[in-house]
């Protein structure tokens, strides 16, 4: 009865489907990056630079040596976490602009656990307890901070875009107060707003001796896989995606839409919190005011460029990291200011967000599936 196509196992089919979808999904973002680089090249040329040398410098700076690769991975770690945070919220139909604040709050909490906990407990904690504790509390802080606008959205209809922006201000000013006041590094030589160094036992070790790239990068990749699994393989993920795609149908299907919204924001905030936590525990070993400025906003660009898919987010985060990291060498080689990288990143975002431009230039037909950014105000 069955023909040969029917007999193909579901696994084979889903792999084929996955490959096709991936290719489709990559189309516009890749072309957006390419177009942005072209336009960026024109800008460089207009500014009197040599775009080829500039891009060569950029490439060398990002991938040209083991150290360059290590630094790109260092940049990529918080980008992956924060990008996942924003992408996860998008999947649930929510626009989390508050990654910036959630990230800062996670970092504060991780630093506090990192330097103060052994003192409070009067014991030296082993690393295998202290590191997970610092990471866990940092993540939790981010989750709580995001759950507030989530609850406001679910139970009062207050729009999450407005409320996450407001929560950013609160988080950043609160952080400033803490780092200048109760949590300030008491070292008499210290003149800036920062915490003391965290205990050795709370530090995530580097992957290789002599390089800065750390286990946080591996954790980021693992978490990306975990997010993918959660979204597409679990009933919770099904609920989150359903609420994101069609809240009316979700309600019809018996899903608790309000609870799901709060939970989606909390998980999104948890991921953003991890971004801050990793920077404190693996890299800076303290929270210095302003270290994370802009990560939360770059994360929006990364999530959009990655088409809100975890794999896409990892690739987009690596690209942004490479550009940030390679920019210094580019400036060194060609005297073109690193700010050009911001211009190119802005262009990428522009082309991804207004994808009609890219579709028009390259004659790509529009697809049905669109990224749901956010629903109507108060909706």
């Amino acid at each position, binding site marked *: 009865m069955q023909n040969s196509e029917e007999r193909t196992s579901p696994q084979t089919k889903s792999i084929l489907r996955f490959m096709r979808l991936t290719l489709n999904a990559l189309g516009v973002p890749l072309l957006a990056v390419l177009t942005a680089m072209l336009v960026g090249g024109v800008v460089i040329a207009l500014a009197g630079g040599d775009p080829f040398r500039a891009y060569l410098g950029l490439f060398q700076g990002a991938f040209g040596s083991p150290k360059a690769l290590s630094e790109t991975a260092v940049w990529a770690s918080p980008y992956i976490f924060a990008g996942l945070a924003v992408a996860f919220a998008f999947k649930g139909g929510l626009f989390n602009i508050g990654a910036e604040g959630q990230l800062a709050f996670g970092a504060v909490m991780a630093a506090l656990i990192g330097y103060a906990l052994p003192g409070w407990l009067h014991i030296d904690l082993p690393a295998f307890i202290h590191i997970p504790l610092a990471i866990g509390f940092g993540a939790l802080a981010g989750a709580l901070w995001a759950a507030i606008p989530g609850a406001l959205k679910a139970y009062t209809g207050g729009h999450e875009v407005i409320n996450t922006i407001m929560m950013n201000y609160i988080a950043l000013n609160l952080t400033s107060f803490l780092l200048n006041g109760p949590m300030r590094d008491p070292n008499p030589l210290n003149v800036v707003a920062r915490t003391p160094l965290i205990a050795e036992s709370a530090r995530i070790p580097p992957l290789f001796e002599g390089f800065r790239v750390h286990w946080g990068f591996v954790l980021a990749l693992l978490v990306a896989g975990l997010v993918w699994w959660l979204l597409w393989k679990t009933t919770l993920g099904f609920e989150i995606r359903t609420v994101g795609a069609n809240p009316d*149908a979700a309600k019809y299907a018996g899903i608790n839409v309000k609870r799901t919204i709060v939970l989606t924001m909390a998980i999104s905030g948890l991921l953003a919190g991890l971004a801050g936590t990793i920077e404190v525990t693996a890299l800076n070993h303290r929270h210095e005011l302003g270290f994370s400025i802009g990560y939360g906003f770059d994360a929006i660009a990364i999530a959009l460029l990655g088409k809100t898919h975890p794999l896409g987010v990892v690739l987009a985060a690596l690209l942004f990291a490479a550009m940030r990291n390679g920019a210094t060498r580019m400036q060194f080689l060609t005297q073109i200011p690193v700010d050009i990288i911001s211009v190119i990143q802005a262009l990428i975002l522009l082309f991804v967000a207004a994808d009609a431009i890219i579709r028009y230039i390259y004659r790509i037909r529009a697809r049905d599936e669109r990224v749901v950014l956010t629903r109507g105000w108060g909706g």
Partner: protein
Amino acid sequence: MTIVLEAKNITKQFPGVLANDQVDFDLRQGEIHAMLGENGAGKTTLMNIIYGLYKPDSGQVSVRGEPIEIHSPKDSIQAGIGMVHQHFMLIPVFSVAENIMLGDETVRYRWALGGKLDQKTVAKRVRELSHQYSLDVDPTALVGQLPVGIQQRVEIVKTLYRNAQILILDEPTAVLTPQEAEDLFRIMHELTEKGVSIIFITHKLKEVLAIADRITVMRAGKVVGTVKPKETNEHKLAAMMVGREVILQVEKKAAKPQEAALKVDGLKIRDFRGLEVVGDISFEIRGGEILGIAGVQGNGQTELIEALTGLRSVAGGKMLFAGKDVTGCSPRTLTETGMAHIPEDRQRHGLVLPYAVADNMVLNTYYLPPFGVRGILQPKAIDANARKLVQDFDVRTPSPYVPTSKLSGGNQQKVIVARELSRAVKLLIANQPTRGLDVGSIEYIHKEIVLMRDLGVAVLLVSAELDEITALSDRIAVMYRGQIVATVEAKKVTREQLGLWMAGGHPEGVPSRRCPEPVEGCCA
């Protein structure tokens, strides 16, 4: 007779679908030419080409023998073509005159800040048109306060105001009561007598036979034929549309009602403004019977169904389902108790359109074994379920993994029907289960509903189509302004009587329920 509009050899290709395949169509002066066809047959595509919303791949549209290039609705209005869409394009807070001049404003003192709207001249012209074609439209009335039938007339006046000589009416009777439809037909005749030519798009066979001068039937992008009403009948037309014999009459045995599955007692529902939209409704449905709720859309049926299915909170009253008090229960509890719901708006409530067919088939059971085990989705069980349902319910889809948005309306509805009826249910609530569907799908869904009844399921059917109500129901309740104004045995009532009740006429012998206290929007 002169041919006022001719479309020759129109071909239009959409990705994967040949929507119009060398279609020829002509319209004579002063005739009513009905376009009949299933959804997706290509009639809307053809009309959109004539109206300038789509550009044909090949072919030519001529008006009064002159080939014309139509790039936008503006060109077609210029050519004297007017279209009344199924969903009115009116602004409720504007007056009739303001709506009519919208986009073509008559202005005085143009030099001063763009000028002043010349309401008087417009109103005068509207009165003239209204008088000329016996339309009876008051230019000063606010559109939002007019009944649907009159709003439709405003749309017609709007096209006449722009000197339309060719009218396209897209499913005009879908929103009307039988009486309002009669009025519309009278107006259509009035218009054609004065030389206006009308293209009438519909899927209701009875109407076509009653009013059209000629009938063109389309199927799968092609014109099957053009016939005169005298030369044909309902069966022949249906067969032309579907391409095979269709059973129009629903075959069903006498109902064998069992004990009550759902008891509703004094249910009250308020809308977001606190106005009572359903006031003090009581009824019961027994297993093995179909209770039809007839009524013009917007008389509280939607709110009633939302309340029964847990999507809307109630302001008072009680619901007993399977012996349990389920007042205020969540949709999930009701689903688990054995309620199936085919929602009114399938794309908004019934489906997640970007989802694969397989996912939509477990939309409300995804968390239950075998589909969800300890919070993990089971792709194998979901796949097996989808393949079985696609087969059992004859869902036409290339694979269970295409996005549901790619399916035709009929097949989308079948996905919902398959999902809801494949569970063990005690009560089926079907709200407009066949709206916008083709004859073949309607036939199929009607059979499924009767089958459920015969299996002992209680069925609550809501439909604005009187034919559907009378064909399926064992008992009929008529809703008017949030009240059930009559409940009768289906066999003992005529269409005319039902139509009268739907329009607010008081049923003889059945005392009309008055609102307990005067509330705005109810009995007002």
